[in-house]
Structure formats: C-alpha cells, structure tokens
C-alpha cells in the first residue's frame, strides 16, 4: 500500500471510512491438517460448516459494489475448496485483489497456473515451522513439511509471491537459526514473518506443550533480534517474540529516559483493524476479526455489510476501545509502563481474561519481568 494511503488510515483512526478496504474471509471450515496449535479449530463459539459457491459469489458482488480492494482467503485450508477457481473469478470480476493463508500442501500446478493468470494475487502465505520435517511435522503432522515446501516451490515456479510465516512454539524455538538459513538461503525468500502459538482454539488444549515459557520467550527474542539484524531486517513480526522484543525495548528505553507518553500509549489502542477491515467466518457470520470469532455482527447475504460496518454497536464499541485508559484497570495499577503500553491484542485478552475490553496479559511487559523475563 502506498505510504500516502497508510498515512491517511493512521491520521483518520478515529474516523471510520465508509466501507472496509479489505476483508479476511475464512472460506472453508475444512482442513487437510490438524495442527496442535491451530487457533481456528476448537472454538466453542464457531459453527464449523462451509457455504455453497453461490453464497460466496453473491457476497463478492456486494463487496465489489462497496469498492473493497482486497480479500484474504483463509480457513481451514482455502486450497481444499474444489470450487476455488470459480470463487477467484468472482473476486476478480468484482475488481478485487486476493491473497491466501495456507499450509501449502494442496497447491498444485493447475491451481497455481490459474492464480497466476488472474494477475490479481498479492501473495500466498505458507506456514513453515521448521528447517526440516522432524521439527515442522511435530506440531503439524507427518508429511506436512514436504507438502509446504512442494507448495512453495510450485508457487515460485509460477512466479506467484510467497510469504512464509513461522509460528514459534516449544518444539521449534531451538531451530530458529536453521529456519532462517533454510528460508532465506536455501528457499531464497526475500523475507519471512514470525509470530508465536497463542492461547486460542486447539492451542488451549495443548498449551503446556506448546506455549513458550519465560526462558524460551527470552531466548526467542534474543535469537530473532540477532537474526534480523544480521539479515538486513529480512525477518518481520506483528506479534510474537520478535514484535514483543522490539516493543519492549522501546518501552523500557522510554521509561528509563522518562519520555513523554507514546501517541498510542496509555489506552487500549493495540488493535487498529476495525477501522479498515472486517472478517467473515466459514459459516457466513460477519465478525470484527478472526481473533474475535465469537463476536457475531451479522450474516452475509442476510445483513448489509455496509450497514454493519457503519452502525453495528459491537463493532463501534471495539473501535472506541482506544478511549479506555489503562489506569482504570486493577491489572495495570501502579505500572510504570502505562504511558508506553497499548494493552495488546483484544483477541488474546478475551481468551485469557474473558474480557475484550481488557489488556492482554500475554504481551504484558510488567508480568513478563515479574515472572523472570528481561528486556533484551
């Protein structure tokens, strides 16, 4: 997105644009894998069923009429849908671009060639969690590493942009150096992104085996900060140890220097998504975000998306979250990081505390330090 447009979004964070720019769509509730940390499955609030082709095509026509620019197709595994070419034609006909979140294993030459021909694909994000099958498959199942790499190579052959995401957990935290080498050198990717397994969906069942403990989190931060520095910033993160490591460094520096509050500090500002995008579950429920899949705002082809976007009380409440001061929470009482803290992801705040309008304990710097962590 051009800088000018990004600035416009940021400068109008408190205003709501007339229609969303982009949508995250869980196009299917089916998946060929059953990853042990999957946020998608095992959410009691979600109905796991797929909609027929026609329902999606009708909805894409509505998105076209609203001038939506991009859709991200996720799931489940989006490439499991046999009608994918028809769906992509519906997206392209409505003058939108698209991207995918995928495990890669179902991507073959035929679908890759089709995608390339549309000229509308931003990228396909494929999850790779290890430098070898042993590490990757430990959480994602036997054969999944080979499938992911085959998928990536197929996309590369068809000159489709590939984005790789590494989800860090207890079984791959010691493999990060190898993973970086494998992705950047052997696969020749320009960069890759990272996050970490979070307390959602299936991961809640396997949390003890998967979620990084304090020492592992510290180790992941040190390693990732070193790796990205040594690789010209080719490793990115919006969440997880690298994002936390960077943010917490800034917060600690600001606290020590007694700097003025950050522009987004001191309030529940972490999530800017509801001002420019919205999500749809596989069963057609419109929700603010895939991380807040229990907040049902309406149903596609039944409720007007434009109406929900402008007037949904639940969505507007989420948008107004940025007005809630951290000083009002018992959880934050007396914390010297308040002026620099954003309260973190509302989705994790909900799964960990049962409240959306609450700071998320997961990315709480004070708690991390109290439990033996350090700013690295």
């Amino acid at each position, binding site marked *: *997105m*051009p800088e*000018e*447009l990004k600035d*416009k979004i940021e400068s*109008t964070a408190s*205003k709501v*644009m*007339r*229609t969303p*720019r982009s949508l995250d769509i869980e196009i299917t509730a089916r998946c060929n894998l059953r990853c042990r940390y999957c946020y998608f499955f095992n959410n009691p609030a979600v109905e796991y069923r797929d909609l027929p082709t026609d329902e999606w095509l009708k909805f894409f026509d509505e998105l076209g009429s609203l*001038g939506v*620019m991009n859709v991200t197709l996720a799931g489940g595994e989006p490439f499991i849908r046999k009608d994918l070419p028809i769906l992509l034609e519906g997206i*392209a006909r409505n*003058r*939108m*671009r698209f991207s995918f979140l995928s495990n890669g294993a179902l991507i073959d030459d035929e679908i890759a060639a089709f995608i390339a021909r549309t*000229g*509308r694909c*931003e990228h396909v994000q494929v999850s790779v969690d290890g430098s070898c099958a042993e590490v990757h498959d430990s959480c994602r199942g036997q054969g999944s590493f080979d499938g992911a790499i085959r998928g990536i190579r197929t996309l590369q052959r068809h000159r489709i942009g590939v984005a790789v995401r590494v989800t860090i957990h207890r079984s791959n935290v010691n493999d990060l150096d190898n993973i970086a080498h494998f992705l950047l050198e052997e696969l020749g990717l320009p960069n890759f992104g990272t996050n970490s397994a979070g307390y959602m969906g299936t991961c809640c069942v396997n949390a003890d085996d998967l979620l990084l403990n304090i020492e592992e989190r510290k180790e992941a931060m040190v390693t990732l900060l070193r790796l990205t520095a040594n690789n010209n910033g080719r490793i990115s993160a919006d969440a997880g140890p690298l994002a936390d490591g960077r943010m917490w460094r800034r917060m600690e520096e600001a606290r020590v220097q007694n700097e003025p509050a950050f522009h987004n500090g001191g309030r529940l500002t972490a999530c800017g998504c509801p001002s420019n995008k919205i999500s749809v579950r596989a069963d057609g429920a419109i929700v603010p975000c895939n991380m807040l899949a229990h907040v049902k705002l309406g149903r596609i082809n039944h409720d007007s998306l434009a109406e929900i976007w402008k007037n949904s009380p639940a969505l507007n409440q989420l948008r107004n979250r940025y007005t809630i001061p951290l000083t009002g929470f018992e959880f934050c009482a007396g914390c010297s990081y308040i002026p620099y803290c954003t309260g973190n992801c509302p989705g994790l705040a909900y799964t960990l505390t049962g409240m959306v309008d609450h700071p998320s304990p997961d990315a709480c710097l004070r708690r991390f330090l109290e439990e033996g962590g350090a700013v690295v």
Partner: protein
Amino acid sequence: MNQTDKPIANPIVVLREEFDDWAVLFNPDTADAMGTNPVGVAVWKRMDGKRSLEDIASEIRNSFEDTPDAASKEIADFVNTLAENGFAGLELESK
C-alpha cells in the same frame, strides 16, 4: 485514428469514496492506488469519453464554490497524471 481531448476513465479502476474529503482510485490489475479529493472525484465521474477537458472544467466550476482561476490547468494536470499511471485514457476519434 487520432486521440481526442475527451478523457475516459479506465473501467477496471475502482473509485472508493472513503471519507467526505478523501477518495482512493485503485487499479486491481496493477495494485496501484492514488488518493484524491472531492474535486478529483467529480472530475473522475465525468470522464466518460464524451466530455472534453474544457466541458469537465466548466461543469466543475459550476458545481464547486470558490473554484480558483487555475482550476482548468489543475484539472488537466490531474487527468494527465491519471493517464500517465494507466488510470485513464483519451477517447479515440471515430471517423
């Protein structure tokens, strides 16, 4: 065939009127996007291949209060920028 001075909007380009004072033109084939203001939107909506630049400029002068004297030049520059970026073309003369 020669080009006329009648600009025509590229039909693949999407106009998103995001705020009262701000719109985005987006070409989904190239992913190029351009921000514009309400005058740009009014120009865009008149680029139908039938109106000349001067027709458009005079309609704009009539519909917006306080249109500056330099409006015609600014509109021509805007349309040129659109054309250079593949957002618009000039209608061809039909013989």
